[in-house]
């Protein structure tokens, strides 16, 4: 989009709503900035002067948070889980969403609703039965077990989300591919899937955020293994009961959030690239 077209298209509504967009953005930046800044203050500064600048940057907070919370192991496990569940979810959900949205067959409606129903199942309600199942398979306190749970609980959202992306692709694409003599599998891999790339990336990001911060299932199914969210939870508890040192707490939170932020920034630029490539602009 060039600046020339931008100027021409501004209407009164546009001018009215502009400040809304910017103030929202500024506020969101402020939240993240405040979090980062608070992690570099002393606790007294956080409590008594929450909006001021730190007298001196307390980088030591990070060292203290890192060592006292032992984030190391949690980070590794969470990286494995997030990558595994993000890819696993897409691997299972994309084909399912494809046949549910692009193929007309008797059960596609009911099966789609069946998946959608999964969105309404509250995690705490099914925790005990899942626990029993994992216990049978010897998958308690196992990353594999937790990974299976993450993938399965991600599926309803993912299938539902991708269904819409596939559904909005023009049908002629498949017909054209068929006329070109490509088989249905080839059409899926080479034509349809690449066109939903922005959807897949968005999905991956959303799942990664969810799984990175997931505590309920992790707490229920892991024992000695730790994820980063469990480490953080534990750390927060310790802080709370021994007089919260907010500054160190914020440093710990930043350690957990900053990787996500970077992932998001990296992925969202990929997202835009992907779109640009898709439409040859």
């Amino acid at each position, binding site marked *: 989009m060039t600046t020339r077209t931008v100027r021409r298209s501004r209407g009164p509504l546009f001018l009215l709503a502009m400040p809304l967009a910017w103030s929202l953005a500024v506020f969101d930046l402020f939240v993240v900035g405040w979090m980062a800044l608070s992690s570099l203050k002393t606790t007294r500064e956080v409590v008594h002067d929450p909006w001021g600048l730190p007298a001196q940057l307390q980088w030591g907070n990070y060292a203290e948070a890192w060592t006292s919370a032992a984030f190391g192991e949690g980070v590794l496990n969470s990286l494995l889980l997030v990558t595994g569940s993000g890819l696993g979810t897409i691997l299972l959900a994309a084909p399912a969403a494809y046949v549910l949205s692009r193929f007309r067959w008797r059960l596609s409606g009911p099966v789609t609703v069946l998946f959608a129903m999964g969105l309404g199942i509250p995690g705490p309600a099914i925790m005990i039965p899942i*626990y029993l199942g994992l*216990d049978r398979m010897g998958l308690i*306190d196992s990353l594999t077990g937790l990974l299976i749970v993450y993938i399965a609980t991600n599926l309803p959202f993912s299938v539902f989300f991708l269904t819409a992306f596939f559904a909005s692709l023009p049908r002629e694409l498949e017909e054209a591919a068929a006329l070109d003599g490509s088989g249905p599998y080839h059409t899926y891999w080479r034509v349809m899937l690449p066109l939903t790339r922005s959807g897949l990336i968005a999905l991956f990001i959303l799942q990664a955020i969810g799984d990175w911060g997931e505590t309920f299932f992790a*707490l*229920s199914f892991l024992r000695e293994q730790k994820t980063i969210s469990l480490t953080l939870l534990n750390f927060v508890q310790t802080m709370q009961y021994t*007089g919260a040192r907010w500054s160190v707490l914020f440093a710990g939170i930043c350690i957990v959030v900053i990787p996500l932020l970077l992932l998001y920034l990296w992925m969202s630029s990929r997202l835009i690239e992907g779109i640009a490539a898709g439409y040859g602009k």
Partner: protein
Amino acid sequence: MKVGAAIVAVCLLTACGGQASGGGDREITVWSMWSEGEPNQKVLAEAAADFEKETGVKVRTQWKGRTAVKTFLPSLNTDHVPADLVEGNNRELTRQFAATKAALDLSDVYQAKVHGEQATVAETVGEAYRRMATSADGVVTQVPYQVSTYGWFFNGKAFPELVTAPPKTWEEFTALLEAQKAKGRKPLGQDGSIPNYNARYLEHFARAIMGDEGWHALAPDRTGRGWLKPEVLQAATMVEKLAKGGYFPDGFNATKFPAMQQKWAGGESDFLYQGTYLPKEVAPYAAPGFEFRAFRFPAVAGKTPTLNVTTTGFGIPKKARNAADAKRFVAFFLQRKYQEKVSTVALEMSVRKDVPAAPQIADLKKALDSGEINKADVVDSGDFTSKVLLPLSDQLLFGKISAAEFTTRMAEQAAAYWKSKG
């Protein structure tokens, strides 16, 4: 995944090596309610290490934090119960754990002697705490080692005279509040966003006026008419006076916990009724030179309310792989040596009468040791409390309804509540 497998493999190898050289394969697993780094955790870890040395039984401790019991319960449905000892407060162990019928009766532990001492566990723990460790159907599911209660906390530096002569009656205390108010202070700190905390005044007034049994008989009253008793009205009227007396800081119910207790520690108000763990939580925000002191709830209508107590201790599941050694560890941890550390390191109160508490809560400990404990507190009315009592008690303390309105609404809503239970 591979890395995880490698770690597991390494752990298995080292565990095997350890067993081969040690000779014994006895081991217990403890799920602790403390998190790594808490003072309480250090005390328990030290005892575990000593126990291992003295008995040769390996102790594996998992620091689960406050959700230890909650996360433990699902495993009771399986044959792989992950711990021999689970740590929690009396309500968790006598209600949640006991309700699964999977909790071992610990009466025999109470008969055993504390490790290396003459007294039995029963004598060391005392009858009051043992009663609190017993479930509704008579199973003793917990052996406690630590207690907490509430006190009126204040800064000993600001009120040196109260350290030795605390107010004995509610009238004396009210006079004190009035005097502070006259100086332009808002004397009472209160995290009004937490309904449980808001109900404490009413509950203490009522328990003093009508006795513990009288108060605890109200919640289970299916007709709801108990709430219309004149004693309840009298207690509610005292809360109404408190609410309208201008003692609480403006907007005390418009903050997020723990803002008000932090402000109190910063010197913005004078008194705060909170648990004996309070100093640990607010120490980082305390005004320089702050000296934590506490006195117990003063007498109301001539009667001092008994103390509400929460105990912390161990439970053992029936399916424990090594219940015998788990029981030994419980008797081991009650030794004076570790219980003194509960007091000096963790700054908590031990169940043991021969272990004095830190000076800031010494008075409360004395009252506990003399047995002035809320004896009727074992009834489980949690659901009623959160759904009926707390919403109305909030409105009463916030001055939204009068004492009379409170009692009539309690009566109506309690009846409706019980009707919904069928």
